[in-house]
């Protein structure tokens, strides 16, 4: 019943919303607008009542696993708990109902909040200039790369290359490409780290940026990061830190301190903006001082001596700004949640987040390593990448089989088949907001699964709302909407 189509609930004449009569004198529409511009027929939107709409979507929602219902160790995504106070506070009148073009004098509370967020993100990164604009991590990458480009152009340099290790998130090369750079992929060392030789071989005066995730996607800290940064800086390039894994190092070390010149945050990961079934995210960037003039506008400035009628906080465009990367000022609703989180934790709390995220990951790794070996690294940071390749070789059970079977036991699956450098990768990120009891239960379940009949596992999951979908058919004959194309 839940999975009946919304359109199947439609009956001509049913209504989900009522609108009042116009309280102004009404004229025929074709006196107001040219007839040629008017629709000939009404839209094909369905006609459904409010009770049916609620029942439909409430029932659909229950087909999801989510952090509020299940352990969700999806590696690289930092599926930590989303504090409920954030939802309440981000919905306050005076926060949720501000129009982007209001007079800044009526926005001083919001601008203060955003300014403070900029300051905190600068401090946590060790990079002093922050832009809150990017809508997501990928846009943060793109924005930072354009910033770098503008910087080089301002110096009269035209550098063409962006380098990144083969363990990088796919967005790194994609962002570099749309920013107009040539992409150079580097090998990883046996230890799962940046291959210094390969890096050296590719660094030259065309190198604009070296992009690296640190801790990297294998959950390992790039221990040579300072040396790497020095090498990049030596050829005049810049180091970009993909901050996807900041949850591991808050208060322990800072991108600005280990050689990074630019980075992005994922507020929806590290600072627990809710993931919202795929978004919205928020991807602020932080950069070194010498890059600050190139940031997209506007940024929030604080004016110490604003005077009687002046505003303390203002929106300003950096002098050599790359321009806008989006409309308005950023995914403010998510930034507000991040602000609430930062203000809740403070310095000690932020460090405790990373301490426990790393502890949880290492513990889970330790109690699983005999059955799920981790090819790279001894200690991990906040996540680890195990490999099911030995298991696959033995009895044909794949990382995907394990992932799917976990769903039957009430655990969301880890990330599988990423990063690409680990065969049959199973990437587990427990986060700090899970208990030892949950980790123990998860490990127990993995052991149980590995004892099960491989055939049974190939068919998993067995107890979910649907069994494995046919993705090949879906891609060959895409059905992307439920009505006949008109």
């Amino acid at each position, binding site marked *: 019943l839940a999975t009946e*189509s*919304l359109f199947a609930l439609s009956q001509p004449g049913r209504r989900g*919303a009522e609108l009042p009569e116009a309280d*102004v004198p*009404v004229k025929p529409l074709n006196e107001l*607008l040219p007839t040629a*511009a008017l629709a000939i027929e009404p*839209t094909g*939107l*369905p*006609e*459904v009542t409010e009770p049916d*709409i*609620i029942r439909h*979507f*409430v029932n659909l929602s229950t087909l999801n*696993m*989510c952090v509020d219902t299940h352990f969700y160790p999806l590696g690289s995504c930092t599926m930590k708990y*989303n504090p409920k106070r954030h*939802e309440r*506070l981000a919905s*306050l009148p*005076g*926060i949720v*109902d501000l*129009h982007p073009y*209001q007079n800044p004098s009526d*926005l001083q*509370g*919001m601008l203060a*909040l955003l300014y403070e967020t900029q300051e*905190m993100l600068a401090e*946590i990164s060790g990079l002093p200039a922050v832009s809150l604009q990017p809508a997501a991590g990928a846009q943060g990458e793109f924005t930072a790369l354009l910033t770098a480009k503008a910087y080089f152009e301002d110096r009269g340099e035209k550098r063409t290359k962006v380098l990144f290790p083969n363990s990088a998130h*796919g967005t790194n090369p994609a962002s570099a490409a*749309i920013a107009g750079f040539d*992409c150079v992929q580097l090998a990883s060392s046996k230890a799962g780290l940046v291959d210094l030789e390969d890096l050296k071989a590719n660094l030259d005066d065309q190198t604009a940026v070296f992009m690296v995730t640190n801790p990297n996607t294998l959950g390992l*800290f790039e221990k040579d990061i300072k040396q790497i940064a020095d090498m990049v800086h030596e050829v005049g390039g810049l180091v970009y830190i993909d901050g996807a894994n900041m949850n591991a190092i808050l*208060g322990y070390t800072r991108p600005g301190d280990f050689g990074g010149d630019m980075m992005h945050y994922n507020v929806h990961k590290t600072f627990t903006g809710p993931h*919202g079934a*795929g978004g919205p995210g928020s991807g602020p960037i932080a950069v070194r001082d010498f890059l600050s003039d190139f940031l997209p506008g506007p940024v929030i400035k604080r004016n110490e001596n604003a005077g009687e009628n002046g505003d303390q906080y203002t929106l300003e465009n950096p002098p050599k700004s*790359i321009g*806008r990367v*989006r*409309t308005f000022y950023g995914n403010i*609703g998510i930034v507000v949640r991040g602000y609430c989180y930062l*203000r*809740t934790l403070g310095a000690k709390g932020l460090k405790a987040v990373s301490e426990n995220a790393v*502890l*949880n990951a290492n513990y889970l790794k*330790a109690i699983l390593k005999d059955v799920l070996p981790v090819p790279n690294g001894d200690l991990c940071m906040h996540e680890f990448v195990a490999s099911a390749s030995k298991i696959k070789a033995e009895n044909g059970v794949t990382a995907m089989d394990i992932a799917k079977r976990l*769903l039957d036991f009430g655990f969301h699956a880890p990330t599988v088949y*990423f990063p690409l450098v680990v065969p049959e990768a199973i990437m587990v990120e427990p986060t700090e*907001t899970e208990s*030892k009891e949950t980790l123990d239960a998860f490990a127990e379940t993995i052991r149980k699964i590995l004892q099960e009949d491989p055939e049974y596992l190939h*068919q998993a999951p067995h107890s979910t709302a*649907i069994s494995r979908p*046919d*993705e090949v058919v879906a891609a060959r004959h895409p*059905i*992307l909407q439920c009505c006949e194309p008109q």
Partner: protein
Amino acid sequence: MPYLFNTSEQQQEMLQAIGVDSTEDLFSNIPQELRLDRPLNVPPALTEMELQAHVSKLAADNVGPGSRVCMLGGGAYDHFIPAAVDEIARRGEFYTAYTPYQAEASQGSLQTFFEFQSLICQLTGMDVSNASLYEGGTCVSEAAFMAMRVTNRHDRVVLLGSLHPEYRQVVETYLKHLNCEVVVVPCVNGSVDPADVDAAMNDQTACLVIQHPNFFGTLEEAEQLTEIAHKYGALSVVSYDPISLGILKRPGDYGADIAIAEGQSLGTPLQFGGPYLGLFSCSEKFVRRMPGRLIGQTVDRNGKRCYVLNLQAREQHIRRDKATSNICSNQGLIAIRAAVYLALLGKQGIREVAELCCQKAHYAAEQLAQIEGLQLPFPERAFFKEFVLSCSEGADYLLRKARQAGFDLGPELSRFEWTDGSGADQTGVLVAITEQRTREEIDRLVTALKA
């Protein structure tokens, strides 16, 4: 510490299982010289009670539509949001889930996004919709990129000067580094002359970007402009106001190739400019060139209808630098809001909302234009829910006077850079009238401005 589980006893047990002595040991791969040797210099932690008092105070330092009548426009609008939208969007099952990678555990999101795609197709008359992009402005650059791939023309796009100036700025930011020329056809008297567009187009142009109704609220000759685009082998990209499609011809009706929009009007609060919702739909034939996430219908092993992330081969985690776009998320939760909103309004409701906006906006324009010193600079141009109001004594004077009476108008045209002169009217101010505005409010504004 809030949200943490590990008691110190448990920490000890866990460290023992790992085989190290302290949590400090777990960080041994971070060289000592790279460590931060002091606490982060951030403000002290607040308990929930303190945080609520603090953020409430910040909120009270702002002035929202609750205390002021909002007639602000320019791409973000104070439309009414039915409570049922919040009821669904605030369910943990939606907002604390992630991208539906595991279809078996995500049919809730997947079917909702599939229905979102279907609703957008019905609204726009387009064949296919993705599951959303960031927001209205970035949709324009994504559309331009897509047009470049489709047409294999990488050097030139043409925009109408009546496009939202921030959208134009975004396109310029995105394209200028790719050596793609961005040609802007100036807007004269509130809309663009098709003849000027024809003159600007050539057979190296990837696309023509039309906003209809345009930034000034007025209608463009979208149909004719689409024909012009096609004449040059370019794609017609139409940025629409989703509410307007309750009464206006849909992009699919007049042959647009790509239809994009800011979807904030569909059930998302203003929240100071974001997160909003990029709507992106196109003709079926271009579907594999389309950016963003797509949900497809298929069957499971038992033949049961179900939904999956589809055509992922276009995306970054597979194609990396050859991907159709670097965007790897959608605005999931905002798309859910829009789906619920459109379902609630339905065929009749969307028409009625559009009519109310249009009627009330015309009433307001008529009344305001009768005030001495105020003019509608484009009296000949048809508009939908938003219009430019010029003030002989300057935009600031008008804004200030309205604000003192409790009304927020704007944005003022002078706020933006108008490289082509399209918005040259430095005394002009946008006024947007949604279905929420009442005659009483409009009359009160008129009285105040007359005084």
